[in-house]
């Protein structure tokens, strides 16, 4: 699995080089955004999600362009290991993304471009990791089923659905529901941070496991041609 992970990094050596150019761009976007409150959370989550998506889509795209699934599956490798390595890569890419976020914060603070941005705390790491997992969990089953090109479109739809459906449900409950549902929603929204973290953790792990199981099922039964 480690070898497959290294393979995904090696085939993206150019993209990894380009990341150095993305950092000033992200910095520019970040400094031109006038946001109130704790902007560090947004910085670390954004840089992580952006880079995770870029590297996931890049590795899959290289595999598809070169039709490399044929040679990979002719090597002594189990299909499930190919799937596991893709999911494991989410973590590695998240580390790259977070590092980029820290570099941006560092440059921002050293150059004194605004109010100093704090360096990542546990909640930032947690938020960035949740974002990375959602992106990967939505991407891989689609990729294994439909290939890279269709997935780029479908992935946007799935990600929007993941973020918009809960927000939509909250809006619907607030607008049309009364009594128990509103009370329940108020209780949830006013829950302490630790409860939110546990709740989010459970949801994210569930999404990850469902996605992994789906990818394994799809890829184990796929005809590689």
């Amino acid at each position, binding site marked *: 699995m480690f*070898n497959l992970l*290294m*393979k995904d990094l*090696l*085939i993206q050596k*150019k993209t990894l080089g380009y990341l150095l150019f993305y950092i000033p761009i992200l910095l520019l976007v970040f400094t031109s955004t006038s946001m109130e409150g704790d902007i560090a959370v947004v910085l670390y989550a954004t840089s992580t999600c952006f880079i995770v998506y870029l590297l996931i889509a890049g590795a899959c795209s*290289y595999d598809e*362009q*070169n*039709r*490399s699934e*044929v*040679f990979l*599956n*002719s*090597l*002594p*490798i*189990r299909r499930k290991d190919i799937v596991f390595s893709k999911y494991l890569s989410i973590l590695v890419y998240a580390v790259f993304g977070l590092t980029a976020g820290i570099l941006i914060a560092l440059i921002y603070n050293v150059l004194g471009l605004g109010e100093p941005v704090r360096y990542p705390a546990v909640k930032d790491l947690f938020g960035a990791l949740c974002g990375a997992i959602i992106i990967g969990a939505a991407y891989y089953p689609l990729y294994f089923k439909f290939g890279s090109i269709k997935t780029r479109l479908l992935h946007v739809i799935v990600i929007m659905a993941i973020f918009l459906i809960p927000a939509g449900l909250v809006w619907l409950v607030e607008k049309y529901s009364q009594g128990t549902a509103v009370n329940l929603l108020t209780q949830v929204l006013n829950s302490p941070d630790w409860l939110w973290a546990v709740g989010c953790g459970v949801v994210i792990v569930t999404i990850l496991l469902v996605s992994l199981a789906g990818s394994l099922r799809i890829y184990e*039964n796929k*005809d*590689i*041609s």
Partner: protein
Amino acid sequence: MNEILEVRNLTKQYPGFSLNKISFTLEKGYIMGFIGPNGAGKTTTIKLIMNLIRRDSGEIKVFGLDNIKNELEVKERLGFVYDDNHFYNELTVLEMKKIIAPFYSQWDDGVFKDYLERFELSPRKKIKDLSKGMKMKFSLVIALSHHAELLILDEPTSGLDPIFRSELLDILVEIIQDENKSVFLSTHLTTDLDKIADYITFINQGELVFCESKDELMERYGLVKGGNELLDEELKKEFVGIKQSSYGFTGLTSDIHRARQLFGSSVLIEKASLEDIMLYTVRGGKPCLTC
């Protein structure tokens, strides 16, 4: 156990095409040519052997092991060369090796370097900058560097110039000097097999036509040439395929002795090449477009 590859009643169905109960075996130390026209099912069979696609029914044993249940062990000992390039174009020969080598426990860097030198492949060259022939050679280097016992080659000579083709065939002959190794080579260029194959497996439209030793085939099959007045409808049925023109007929028989009994000295009987066997079998009794 001498069988290195056993395929029994292999079936795979697609919309509009099916591979229907294909069976053949290959023993250690031999080269088997796998022939058939385009679309006959050669690549499908190879993909089933490599477990790239799922079989509907049947059995494939490589080194006496089921190719699905013992997939890793089987693939450790298999080498493959495909007709298209599947390596990463942006990587160099050396980088590609770095990706592949860790997957094989028997990988031998010394052998890899020796073959690179022998084939004049630069380790620093990118895959995209290699010619088709060089890409094929690189695939072969990879297959040979982990001491594969069975080489599976899918149309390796298509699109190559005669010098490259001849060089490849020489290498394959050299490989089976080690009697524990075998080569399974699919092609529609039958002249390659005339030179090197020990056994021929012929499939057409997903059906097995025959699997026999090449020498026996050459002794059994023949081209019968004679005047049209010698033929009637019953005698035409004796041929695998027949071409007729106003000058006479040429028919392929799968039994030279019977043809001699039937026609005596009134016809000319010549040896048939693998190309003749394939052409007449595929075309059957259909009129030849060029006649």
